[in-house]
């Protein structure tokens, strides 16, 4: 096929997604911009952005988002990573059984996960209090206290998401060529040195991809908060996604919600841009190798 025909076929096949792009991306984006830069009477204004600066709930939501983000990603990532390394070290027959069990939380709907943790974290009759009772904690109000609500959410979120990190890292570990390990043992490297100088560099793509996808998953989070704490107690578990929803659909301030949504989009955009710019994540996701260029 010559050049012009190639383009024509491509455009015909891509025409549904072009329509999609206009209707489900450009139009909502323009709608957000239009709402964010107008008042309820429809005239141009910057008031929605000015009120962000003096909105105490927004600043609480932003710092909660940072707390939730750092706490969840740190815990999920380290748990998922360590579990992957442990399963990789094990060479017996139960491997696939363990793998399936660790995979299970990914198959449970987030609302049901919320429900499960509601039962587990309950103050008087929940099992977690009982399991921790030898440590002398007494009855703990996990979800009802300002200081513990967020850690409890992070705990539930870790159960949900660490298997995801596990999945990526574990798959990465399996791609390390065995001859590298043979060379390492010939050279007399210790187990730690082998891990540090052979394994880690080999699974660099998985390390970066797992971080990106884990981080995005955490920023998207909404369901667990809606079910477990509904933002409370007080505003202690308001994060950006939840606050956008509340402003739009409990306060019914559509224009202000649009401005907050744009801020949210800008934060996600900056994060993704930084990841693409400063890591090789595109290459690891197959972008330069195959898709495009």
């Amino acid at each position, binding site marked *: 096929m010559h050049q012009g025909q190639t*383009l024509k*076929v*491509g455009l015909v*096949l*891509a025409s*549904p*997604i072009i329509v*999609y792009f206009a209707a*489900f991306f450009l*139009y909502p984006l323009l709608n957000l911009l239009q*709402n964010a830069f107008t008042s309820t009477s429809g005239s141009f204004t910057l008031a929605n952005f000015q009120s962000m600066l003096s909105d105490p709930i927004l600043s609480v939501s932003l710092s909660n988002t940072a707390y939730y983000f750092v706490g969840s990603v740190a815990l999920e990532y380290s748990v998922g990573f360590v*579990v992957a390394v442990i399963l990789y*070290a*094990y060479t*017996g027959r*139960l491997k696939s059984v*363990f793998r*399936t069990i*660790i*995979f*299970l*939380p*990914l*198959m449970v*709907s*987030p*609302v*049901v*996960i919320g*429900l*499960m943790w509601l039962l*587990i974290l309950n103050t008087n*009759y929940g*099992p977690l209090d*009982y399991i921790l009772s030898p440590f002398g904690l007494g009855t703990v109000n996990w979800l009802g206290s300002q200081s513990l609500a967020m850690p409890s959410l992070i705990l539930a979120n870790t*159960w949900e998401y660490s298997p*995801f990190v596990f*999945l*990526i890292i574990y*798959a990465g570990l399996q791609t390390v060529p065995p001859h590298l390990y043979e060379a390492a043992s010939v050279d007399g490297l210790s187990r730690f040195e082998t891990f540090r100088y052979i394994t880690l560099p080999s699974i660099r793509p*998985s390390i970066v*991809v*797992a971080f990106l996808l884990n981080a995005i998953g955490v920023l998207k989070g*909404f*369901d667990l908060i*809606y079910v477990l704490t509904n933002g409370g107690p007080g505003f202690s578990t308001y994060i950006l996604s939840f606050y*956008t*929803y509340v402003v*739009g659909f409990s306060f019914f301030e*559509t224009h202000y919600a649009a401005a907050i*949504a744009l801020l949210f*989009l800008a934060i*996600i*955009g900056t994060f993704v841009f930084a990841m693409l710019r400063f890591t090789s994540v595109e290459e690891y*996701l*197959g972008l330069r190798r*195959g*898709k*495009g*260029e």
Partner: protein
Amino acid sequence: MKGRNLLLIAILAVISLVYLFPIYWTVVTSLKTSTEVFTRPPVFFPSQITLSNFFVSVDVFRAVSQTAVGSIPWMIDSTIIAVLATLISTFLIAAPAAYALVRFIRNVWLARLILFMTMIPEAVFVVPFFIIDAKLGLLNTWWGLILVYISFSAPFSTWLLMGFFNDVPKSVEEAAQIDGLSPYQIFYRVSLRLVTPGIIAAVILSFISCWNELLYALVITFSPFPSGSQTVPLFLTSFIIVEKSFNWGGLAAAGIFTMLPTMIMGIFAQRYLARGLTLGSVKG
């Protein structure tokens, strides 16, 4: 070596216990009698098992009593919405677009755009989508949700299928071209069939994410009465709001009952899903 593996089995058993426990606890709670639900210390192994929690009535939506098993109409709505959104986004939008982007319009910026669209949180577009559905008169309808669900499932499936199409050897398509097939015939009859594992992964993951979606469902099918368009997560959240402090057995039963379809699907399709869940970074 043997001793090391035994130690690892012990550690992995503890890890498995941690991942299994919330599921176990919910199953056990759904099977307990109400006296064993509210006891201190909590009962880990119930002495008596009952299925009555699955049939206890609860006022879920205003003046509408439901049982866990009574969630079946909601499951049917969820299924119809998820199936239609999945079919449209996978076969009508994603498959041809992915093929075009891999074979005909290779452009790194378009690929980046697709990737970015998979990462936009639902909360960002929830206001515009509500406004659009309201203008089109689609609030509280199937199509209101289907259209919105296509918004996240189409870029996801496109990105996933791009990876699969990219793995199809060009020589196969060149052979088909020599046989006289048009580019569209090659796409439809040759390449699309060669990426069947990708299609399976896209379809299942798209179905599960539509079935599980909460935020859009809350906003677009907000009616306090059953409207024939409300999905399972909405049923569950209203069940939770009503029953949070009283009927845990019923709550657990509703969670277990509604979780079964996607869970069974996911376990059987496990080997197809790893690659999809990780946006194509995990192969095999």
